[in-house]
């Protein structure tokens, strides 16, 4: 069964960039998009996802809050929070909720590393 990556960011440009990076490192993965937390949760419930890439800085619910809610819905989902703020505080909070942290702009390499790790943890080669 194809694994799905859910990409959440209110900027379409940012989503496009992530999709481009995703295609270059793990083209076998399917992806879904959402532009805000509510839509993301709806998509998660309807279509499910194995991995989520969340922008931290979004109007309404931010990426960290969304990460927490996603884990409630789908406990085994692997989440990475993406932010330009490399502040220790944000990184720490991300780790505390069991999410990884990816700096913005997302590079193919960083994304590749995160995904390799996430996939390995699921037991998928």
């Amino acid at each position, binding site marked *: 069964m194809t694994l799905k990556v859910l990409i959440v960011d209110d*900027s379409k*440009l*940012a989503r496009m960039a992530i999709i481009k990076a995703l295609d270059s490192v793990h083209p076998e993965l399917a992806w879904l998009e959402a532009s805000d937390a509510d839509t993301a949760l709806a998509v998660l419930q309807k279509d499910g996802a194995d991995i989520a890439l969340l922008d931290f*800085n979004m*109007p309404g619910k931010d990426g960290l809050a969304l990460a927490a809610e996603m884990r409630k819905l789908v406990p085994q989902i692997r989440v990475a929070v993406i932010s330009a703020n490399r502040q220790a505080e944000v990184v720490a909070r991300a780790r505390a909720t069991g999410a990884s942290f990816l700096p*913005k*702009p997302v590079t193919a390499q960083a994304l590749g590393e995160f995904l390799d790790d996430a996939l390995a943890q699921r037991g998928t080669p």
Partner: protein
Amino acid sequence: MNELLEQFLLESRELAGQATDGLLSLERAPDDAGLLDAVFRALHTLKGGAGIVEFPAMERALHAAEDALSAARSGTRPLTPQLTDACLACLDQVLQWLDVLEHTGELPTEGSGQQAELVLARFDVAPSHELHPQPVTAPPSAGQPAAGAGILPALAREVLQAQLEVTRQGVAQGYLASAAVTASNVLQSLGRNEEAHKLAELAAAEHPQQLAAALARHLQHLLAHDSAELHDPAAAAEAFPPQHGPAMRTLRVEAGRIDALVRLAGEFTVAKNALAHASGLASAQGNALAPVLTAQQAALESLVARLQRAVLDLRVLPLRVVFQRFPRLVREISATLGKRVELKISGGETEADKAIVEMLAEPLLHLVRNALDHGVEEPAVRAAQGKPPVATVRMLASRQGDQVVIEISDDGAGMDSQRIARVALERGLVTAEALDGMSGEEVLDLAFAPGFSTTEAVTAISGRGVGMDAVRTAVERMGGRVTLQSQPGRGTTVRCTLPFSVMVTKVMSVEAGGQMFGIPLDAIVETIRVPRSSLGAIGAARAIVVREQTIPVLNLGQMLGDAGAARDTEEATIVIAGVAGQYCGLDVDALGERLEVMLTPLEGLLGGTPGVTGTTVLGDGRILLVLDVAELLQ
């Protein structure tokens, strides 16, 4: 431009717009946490976008603005007017960069580093030397700017100014060459390498006098551009990034392609008319196929009409495109004038043809400037009259039938019709007698007359008050009208009515001197048939009395250069046409029918022909010249 850049362009424009609106709203509600948050996020996302497409200059510029908002959000540092100005300047620069991207298809690289530095300087941030695109070759000490002092431009200016002085002193070639080299080095240290090279070449190439002149020219140019600070009000109004075209659409289509489609639709009209003509001939000749032809032609007629409407619809833009620059403008100008003004815009979603929307930019600018300069009173005056301290200027657009109405109104001093009458009399624009017979509105209308100006002092803001004349000309050229209403002490409203679409015009065709002409139906008052003898002669000209008004009669064929057109028939067919209160009778040979035509504007050699707006081809293949009545009347 690849997909990513296109999305970047689209998104960044929107975000910059949101951030600007947010900043302006924040000025009225500085403690609104939601607004602070929204503006911060817009700037943050903008910066993120710049990172994605790899545009470091934009990232740096926005970082400063983002920091300022972040500090305001956390309460560390309030958002002062100065900081707001700096953020707005940053966004202006971003918009300029986006314009370059849109036009060249590539990210602006040349000079963007230095432009970012200029933005940063406004935030009291020391410039960084990492940004210079090429390593700096060791310049002579005179050209070296003080490192990290944040006064980069000022010192550079001094040095460049000094070199300019050298050119004025009639010195020898050697000194001039050296001055050029010094100036070149200054530019190079600022990262402006292209300009630096130009100057360096100058040093090598020219004879002393030419060198002095060329160098002086270059330096003056550099220094003049450098001083266009946004705090200079006249420059403020001019320094706005020109509107290069809309980015409001999700589908980006080159304007040229739409124009080609419009022309094609026009040709369909011609073909359709030709078919109608042929069908008519067939009926007249009793051809068996006539009924079939007629039926098919009717079906085609309706399809072509729908196609035309759909094509013209492609060219419509929301008026918001031209309105959106005004909140900033009003803010800057009212600050300079020391007046408090709020601009209220509504109906921005109203659409009109692209040509109209673009044309409106300048007239609206004149009208808004007038309202701010002459309409809105000083705060003390307003207070004395019990008016609210913040004046309101409204910009309103609405669609009425197949017309678009745009109004600019203010709650200021209104126009003094007595003063207008007096000035018009003084300037010889009207006679005392004519004035007596005028209604209040007609007197106000005198403000539109060429050569009229009620400003005793010429201000840099409004220019010489020739704005009203230019406004009327521009609007009428598009087939529209401008009117004024005003109440002394209460305010003024200027109303522009324009056709929704410029390309389709209703005309009445007439024949004169063997040529077919179209007269816009809008301009026609009536057509009459009179005995030729009733045309009185006034010197070499002819005139006719209609309802006790004497109007000149012009023989159309003769007027447009057909010498053999003076027909001596017993009866004359006169089309009475007029624009803005001026009338004339056009003596024609025969009246044709009413037509709806899509005009092809005159281009090339014929472009300057006075009196003709455009041409179209009739069903029988003849060319119809559509007349510009306003121009004919002059």
